[in-house]
């Protein structure tokens, strides 16, 4: 017995009786050792034969060949299995859960936008500008479409379904209140303003929180897919190392016994296994970095920008409602105007959101629209302060165009808001593109790996068998 054989007994355990038992089932098909039929149990018979075979060199060689082929195939199978899991998760990130998260963000934004548009239209009175009405209608249509879409596609679980059902119930109620407000306003009745405030309350206390929860659930689902796609294929790596180790040992044993340096079959099998392992490592590393970049550079920025956008929309609604309610509703301190307080609060959130977005923006083309939004917000605040002062002075007729703008007031706070909104939209589009690009890059890194590793594993197993077969033929 050589030293090598002792090692075998420890590492692969193939020739040892006990170890042979454990590997026999896997080794069965490729290297057909003794076929079973017999009066005793097939199992006992198999063990018996194996034990008998292990006493001769050809028998040992057969067992070694079977084990090598089995290990290479096991490696290939686990690589295919683990990588296709990650490919599926990465595909889900790009093609399923990220779009669903983006849709939920879009739904959230459409609702907030509809509320802002309805209050803007209301302020303009009977001469509600057509484009404001169209914006509202588009928002509602978009929200309804996204809601149906979300209901059909979500798999984020029961909580998401609950939010979708709630939104489905409350959205028609909200639009009903808005239409009532509009119809009443067109008759010149102050009651319309009360309806609008009620609708706004429904929006900001029921619909928007539900949409936000839905967005967060979908984003949570997305992050889960990220983690799945990024997790290291540990089983494949381990079996790969094992297969390579066994191949190296077999060649070393071969060299010791025959003094031949290369057995072509075994070398080919080693090369195939090494290529698969390398490919797996590099591909997964690239995919991980792509997905990480998509998450940190794209998704996180998207979340911050979406939140900032919602804050800007709600601030605008508050600004409009301050003019509509005229102090009819007080904040909790019982002295300040509720809607003015909300405006200030949302502007603060917008400020901090934009500061974070600016920090997260990782290139100049991402920073530019955010910087524009920051400038727009500063201008908006100045104009709002001026309009608010005019209003507090009691000059409603002047304050109104300062807020909603008209042909003599191009420099309204509404125009600043439009700048902010457009810049944020641009920034969101940019980050979305960055996300898609990075995530697609990550997904691409795994491309071909499944088919490649399957094919190479089969080739490797076949080569190992051929290599051992060549040695065996020397005994005939």
């Amino acid at each position, binding site marked *: 017995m050589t030293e090598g054989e002792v090692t075998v007994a420890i590492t692969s355990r193939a020739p040892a009786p006990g170890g042979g038992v454990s590997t026999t089932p896997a080794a069965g098909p490729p290297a057909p050792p003794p076929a079973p039929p017999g009066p005793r149990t097939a199992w006992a018979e198999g063990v018996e034969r194996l034990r008998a075979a292990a006493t001769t060199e050809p028998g040992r060689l057969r067992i070694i060949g079977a084990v090598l082929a089995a290990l290479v195939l096991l490696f290939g199978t686990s690589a295919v299995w683990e990588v296709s899991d990650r490919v599926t998760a990465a595909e889900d990130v790009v093609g399923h859960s990220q779009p669903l998260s983006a849709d939920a963000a879009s739904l959230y934004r459409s609702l907030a936008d509809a509320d802002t548009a309805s209050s803007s239209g209301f302020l303009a009175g009977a001469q509600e500008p057509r484009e404001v009405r169209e914006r509202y209608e588009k928002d509602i249509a978009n929200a309804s479409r996204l809601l149906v879409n979300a209901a059909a596609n979500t798999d984020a679980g029961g909580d998401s379904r609950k939010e979708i059902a709630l939104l489905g119930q409350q959205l028609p109620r909200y639009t009903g209140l808005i239409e009532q407000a509009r119809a009443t306003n067109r008759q*010149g009745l102050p*009651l319309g303003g009360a309806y609008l405030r009620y609708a706004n309350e429904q929006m900001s206390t029921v619909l928007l929180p539900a949409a936000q929860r839905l967005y967060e659930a979908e984003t949570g689902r997305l992050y889960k897919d990220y983690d799945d796609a990024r997790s290291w294929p540990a089983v494949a790596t381990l079996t790969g190392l094992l297969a390579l180790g066994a191949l190296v040992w077999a060649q070393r044993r071969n060299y010791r016994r025959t003094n031949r340096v290369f057995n072509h079959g075994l070398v080919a099998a080693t090369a195939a296994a090494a290529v698969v392992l390398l490919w797996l490592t590099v591909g997964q590393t690239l995919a991980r970095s792509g997905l990480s970049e998509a998450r940190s550079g794209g998704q996180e920025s998207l979340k911050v920008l979406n939140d900032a956008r919602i804050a800007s929309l709600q601030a605008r609604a508050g600004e409009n409602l301050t003019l509509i*309610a005229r*102090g*009819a509703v007080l904040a909790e301190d019982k002295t300040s*105007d509720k809607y003015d307080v909300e405006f200030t609060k949302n502007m603060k959130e917008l400020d901090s959101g934009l500061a974070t977005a600016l920090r997260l923006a990782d290139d100049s083309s991402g920073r530019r629209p955010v910087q524009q939004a920051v400038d727009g917000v500063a201008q908006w605040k100045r104009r709002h302060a001026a309009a608010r002062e005019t*209003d507090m002075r*009691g000059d409603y007729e002047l304050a109104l165009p300062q807020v909603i703008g008209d042909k003599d007031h191009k420099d309204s706070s509404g125009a600043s808001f439009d700048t902010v909104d457009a810049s944020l939209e641009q920034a969101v589009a940019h980050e979305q593109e960055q996300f898609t690009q990075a995530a697609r890059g990550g997904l691409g890194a795994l491309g071909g790996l499944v088919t490649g590793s399957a094919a190479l594993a089969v080739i490797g197993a076949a080569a190992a068998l051929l290599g051992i077969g060549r040695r065996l033929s020397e005994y005939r």
Partner: protein
Amino acid sequence: MRIRAGRDHGYGGDGSPAAASAASGAGAASGAGAGAPVRRPARRLRGWGGVGAMAAACALTAAVVLLPLAQAAPDGVGPGAVRPPATMALAPATPADTCQDPEASLRPGGVDGPAVERIRKAGKLVAGVDQNSFKWGYRKPDGHLDGFDIALVKAIAKDILGDENAVIYRAIPTSQRIPALKENRVDIVVRTMTINCKRLEDVAFSTAYFEAGQQVLAPKGSPITGYDTSLNGRKICTAAGSTAEAALKSQSYGSVPVSVANQLDCLVRLQLGEVDGIITDNALAAGQAAQDPSVQLVGSPFTREFYGVAMNKDAGDLVRRVNKVLENYRAGGNDSPWMQAYRTHLEAVLPNVTAPPAPKYRDG
């Protein structure tokens, strides 16, 4: 509980609107301090022991005095009086206040002082008004302001400047009524503003130009008949911080109170079927009824509060001048400008008012 001998003057037998709006026509029978129960509908006696009611009324009044409601009260639903329930048959309660006769104002005069001089020089009267209070101060679909308050502003402008359109209207938010006057951003505020002692510390008021009271508003055909046991089991809406809310807290008649931010929000809830009735100032309730023909005021008012024109505390000459305008505004019996404005804006929804409230004056 302070007894208000002087108040009955404004209430008594001179055809005051309070008597008229009580819809009994017996107001004249109520002599000063006598507190005759004649005008009260007998049904309101039900379920009330005089002593218990008196105690409840005192407690409620005290509560209202102590609560600093002035700032929180939207649109003139100020801390007014919660009048002892009708059974009391005493004189109507004063606004729960810390001063004597808050609605007694300076005697009328036509001598121009610095305040009137300044308005003349500017050529425009700057008036703080509401634009969301239907039938009082609101924007018509054409964008112009109209209403009972606006008509009074025009009368004042016509008297001082000779032109009823020489007015700059400032649609001031509720919370800005007093600051706007103190900082002289407006000359007068005519905005369903209740006269009370707390506000008298900051501004001056004209004589009362309207008497209002808390009253129940319910859908036509509703079994609710007023501030009484018919409220049992009904959801009743009031504005947060208003006199009506305090009244329901002290005597709910088995109703379920629902509190909202503003009295107009109550009408929204009523139309949506979320509440069965509303309690608010009847002047504002009239504005609500005017926006929804399917609701109406029921029962009688159970408090009294007076609206006045508010001015800067130092503008004594302007107060006298406005009081002179009000004298003329009230004069002429059924054809007085006051009655004409009433018929134009309010009669349809707040019927049975036959005359303006009588002015009360103090010297000094």
